[in-house]
């Protein structure tokens, strides 16, 4: 199958993606440097924020604008969960609220569990330097 590489390397889109993704990471970096929040809490904050912004229908505009620049950061994971839950409700009501979110992000969660375990198995035990 022929791939149109001009569409793959759409520089305008890549630029918007790069800048948006970069800015979201800067917000995270400021939280790391200026607050005493642990990385775990920051990840939780980002996912929850993404889910709330997704629920409010705001995050969608960022996704339309920046593509992977908005979906690859963890806020995008939260957005995907919320979007899935809303679609689930549209499809099957209350059950959908429970099914939809995880269903929409099942690929990522399953990959994280599977590859995570596998990678930990093959990893070499490291010497702690700190």
């Amino acid at each position, binding site marked *: 199958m022929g791939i149109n590489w001009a569409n793959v390397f759409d520089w305008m889109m890549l630029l918007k993606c790069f800048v948006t993704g970069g800015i979201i990471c*800067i917000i995270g970096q400021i939280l790391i440097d200026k607050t005493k929040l642990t990385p775990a809490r920051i990840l939780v904050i980002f996912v929850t924020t993404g889910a709330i912004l997704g629920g409010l229908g705001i995050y969608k505009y960022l996704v339309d604008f920046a593509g992977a620049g908005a979906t690859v950061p963890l806020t995008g994971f939260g957005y995907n969960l919320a979007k899935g839950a809303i679609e689930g409700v549209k499809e099957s009501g209350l059950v959908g609220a429970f099914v939809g979110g*995880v269903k929409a992000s099942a690929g990522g969660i399953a990959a994280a569990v599977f590859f995570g375990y596998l990678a930990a198995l093959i990893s070499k035990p490291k010497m702690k330097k700190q």
Partner: protein
Amino acid sequence: MTNPLETKQAYQDYVDQKSPNSPILKNCFWAFIIGGIICSIGQIILNICKERGLDTQTSGTIVSIILIGLAAFLTGLNLFNKLGKIAGAGSLIPITGFANSIVSPAMEYKSEGYVMGVGGKMFTVAGPVLVFGISASILVGIIYLIFNTQAITLV
């Protein structure tokens, strides 16, 4: 004792020592660059999937799976942590950080066995992320069910 102005390196060290350091600006710069690069890699994979005729949802899932897989194995090979030292939030905030947060503790507790050590400690950080993420999504779904609208459409 070496004269600080003698060699280029010594001079650089001398300047670094004297000038007020602003690590936050440097950290933000690298977070921006590395975070941007990781997202762009995601965008390129996304574009390739779409060119192959896959829908947006499937393409997005493939991007997540590939980035998570890469980050997991790079963590296993101790390469991701080296990147993380420079990138800071640049590698933590993208989905790669989620994969890293699963593999890192699992590696550390390998000696406690493959079930409770690796299998259990995998979720030290990822667990809370899933708990809050999934709970928030369920609440969003229930609120949507009750009000049958997303807030933005009310405005």
